């Protein structure tokens, strides 16, 4: 059972306090999108063996959504960050790259 820190309220809590929300930073495809793009948006998800950026919700806490950068192999959590961003902040990116050289290119 993971431990995660909610970047909104600062609480570090057990996994059971959170609800997973799948891959982070999806690019929404709305009306006008091609069938292929829309299909990928609905169904194609990264399933990396290594660094993964995920949505979580502090469901039994403050209720806010946030993102976590986590290694799917070792379960190392490189960090959590607010959801209102298109990607991990620079310091976190640097921290991940330090732990997993080659990321994001080779590490994804």
């Amino acid at each position, binding site marked *: *059972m*993971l*431990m995660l820190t909610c970047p909104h309220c600062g609480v570090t809590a*057990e*996994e059971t306090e959170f*609800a997973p*929300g799948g891959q*982070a930073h*999806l690019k*929404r*495809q*709305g*009306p*006008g*999108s091609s*069938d292929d793009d*829309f299909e990928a*948006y*609905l169904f194609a998800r990264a399933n990396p063996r290594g660094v993964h950026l995920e*949505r979580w*919700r502090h*469901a039994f806490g403050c*209720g*806010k*959504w946030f993102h976590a950068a986590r*290694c799917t192999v*070792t*379960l*190392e*959590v490189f960090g959590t960050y*607010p*959801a*209102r961003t298109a990607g991990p902040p620079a310091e976190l990116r640097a921290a991940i790259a330090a*732990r997993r050289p080659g990321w994001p290119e080779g590490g994804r």
Partner: protein
Amino acid sequence: MSFRLGHGGRLIDRARPLGFSFDGRRMTGFAGDTLAAALLGAGETLMGRSFKYHRPRGAVAAGVEEPNALMGIGSGPQAEPNARATVVELAEGLEATSQNRWPNLALDIGQLTGLGARLMPAGFYYKTFIHPRAAWKHVFEPVIRRAAGLGRAPRGPDPDRYEQLYAFADVVVAGGGVAGLHAARLAAEAGRRVIVFEQAAHWGGRAPVEGEPVGGLPADAWVAAQLADLAARPNVTLRARATVFGLHDHGYLLAEERCGEGGGTGPRRRLWRVRAGLTVVACGAFERPLPFAGNDRPGVMLAAAVRDYLVNWAVAPGRAVAVVTGCDDAYRTAMALAGAGVRVPVVADLRPGGGGALAARARAMGLRVADGACIARVLGGRSVTGVVLAPADGDGSGGEEIACDAVAMSGGWSPAVHLWSQPGGGLAWDADRGLFRPDPARAPTGADGRPMAVAVGAAAGELALDAALADADRALRAVLGLPAGAPPVTAATAEAPPRTAAMLPARAGHRLRAKAFLDFQNDVKVSDIELAAREGYVSVEHAKRYTTLGMATDQGKLSNVAGIAVLAEARGTPVPEVGTTTFRPPFVPVTIGGLAGEASGPLFQPVRMTPLHGWHAARGAVWEPVGLWRRAYAYPATGERTADAVAREVLAVRGRVGLLDASTLGKILVRGPDAGRFLDMLYVGMMSTLPVGRCRYGVMCNEQGFVTDDGVVARLGSETFLCHTTTGGADRIHGWMEEWLQTEWWDWKVWTLNLTEQFAQIAVAGPKARVLLERLGGMDVSREAQPFMRWAEGRLSGIAARVFRISFSGELSFEIAVAASDGPALWERLMAEGADLGVTPYGTEAMHVLRAEKGYIIVGDETDGTVTPRDLGLERMIASGKADFIGRRGMERAHLVDPGRWRLVGLAAEDGAVLPEGAYAATDARNANGQRVTEGRVTSSYFSPTLKCGIALGLVRRGPERMGEVLAFPAAGGRVLKARIVEPVFHDKDGARLNG
């Protein structure tokens, strides 16, 4: 035959005899005995039957790794199956029952018929699966079900108490042997919060049994001194009888404490759920059996276990004990036996060069030691009568028969690496010691990516006392960042390298191999692993599943290395290339009661109650669970059937006035400058154009275009909306709103608040609803002042209320929301003022019938996650002018605009009967699999008290285009029910009743 010595026994109190029973026979042991020790002390070596072959078995071990002596303890609802007699503490009146035998332990039909042996070769399960299904169903499964099964589950509710405890620690030490205690001492002195768990009732592990001094003190005294020191420290928690059975992600550690044993009070079991910064794996090591024919006979035991019984409980396994070993350690057993006056006719040492210093000491005592020798087979049936001594590298022919009534064996030691391996720690094969040990370079890692466990002492592969303490000292200082120090001084005895064996004697034929057991609990023999390898199951994980080696409670404790050695030999590869199987939690069996803790009965899960719950309960409501809520399903009067109550409630609403507790409906406040824009994205219809003071029904879809929720939206102000959701959808939809606001449209100025529990909501429905509200007084609820789909605020009977003119019954209806705390008062007022109007509380089932009579859908009944608004006839809800909303793109997909989709219709059974919910309509056509082609299904079905016949809603292929057609619904028993496709609105089709 085993017996109790006249003196000694460091753990027993001979002044306190305890009576107990075994299979109904009265026996006596001593306080401090384990059940196994007491049985052996009473001369009882036969303790159980094996799982597959029902072979007679006795205790092999003296601890948690015991595979054979599994017993039922107690009777009635407190009975515990599969308890290992080697760890059950003897108590006055204890009832033990052997397992896997019929009619009794001594005479077992299963063994006489050879049932297991013939029916269950290696790979049995897989082979039978390949046979026709009928063979499995009619032959194998019934036989297995009768013959197999470990133990018997207790009947009746468990009267005992169990609890769970959360704890946090910088360092958890799993194992209170000398290495664990020294590690705990170092961590405690460094100021860390420390918890030490010891699975046994006694501390110190093996050291006090061996008797070597530690730190200048007798081992017992050193252990006592450590405990006294640790117990006095505020940052240390000590728990005996507590087994760490799982180490999981991010240092989540589980331990089960047996509080109820040893005269303890409190709960029977306590489950510790600990977040451990660092886990010190100090679980020691397990001795391995040796693979020779008959090594499973009662009386054949692990050498160190023999020593445990001798020293701890003054029990000897026999009058003459042959010893066979591949390592020096078993010489300690031989010498201890001899020292206690037990005859040791021979020590067979597999190693051609013999043992080291300990062997020399044994020889000096006058013991016969045979180098390069082994036991070729054990003589005897339910007990040992002798052994055949033969060269270890021969084929077992022409050996020397030696009379004895017990055997002590040692195949070397395996570190207890389970806790290290469970969370992913790597193992390394140590060829010198002949064991897999934790590889410090591949420690399991925690949330920060750094090691979260360290193995010390025997668990790290350091089997000798001095080396174990030195290892614990070095490892803890390193991990805690302490300066180098010195471990407690101990004597060192150099030991010669051990030898592992795949089979004894090495060139034995099949007959012997088929009687040499590797996994006693699962009855896996040397020949089984060889068969698996011959049939291509050469991967260790495949061989494990094919043969069941190391499965069940063994989890590789005794069988792992022995099985791997056989597989390695069969494959012709070295042991490290074979590798090990995965060690899975739990390390030892744990009780379901412990895992459940207090979560049973009313505490199984939280129950959500509306503010009116007490009133419903007092009226004898029948409950319906809806999510965690309990809703009143109906209110049967005394002697009234529930179905009659539902009909009465429906008719009351249609004819007079009814009250429904609608408090569970989700109520989410959405506010902000972009609130209208946001709701236009969330609902398929337009919400931004809704005038203040009005209500609008809304349908929500997911991105695929499938309906996920519905409800009425009320515009409370220019920037404020109140969104009603389904009862089950409130939390999900709130999370859904937040997800979009935070991950997609995070620049939109919208706030959401789930107010579901802040309000009590009461539906007042029926032709007399307006009269009733007017009697309460305070608000103008006339048709002119509050038309359909309007809301107003005011005071009803002095209670601040928001009144919505909305209807889920088709009748004139008001839903009144008041502060949760005002709910009961309002309800009571409505009941009192409406008494002469015939006001009737109605439950969720009447609500369902009422809405079905009107053809209103319920998300979850008419929808199942694959149904679109168009399928439900709700295309008029979809705002044509909106460029985008969640689900719009999804609805454009080819399959979702297919005119052949199943769409909502009403269904009327030709004979007026109630169709079964979920029934499928079938055509005469057949699909590629030969099955009838279906063309629709019943989604809701009720008896309508209003219409006095069955009514149903369903989804039917091109349904609305096929009005009047009759569909066939095949039903149980070969019957076919016929139903006509009709409009989904059964009652008041023009909606005249809405306005009362």
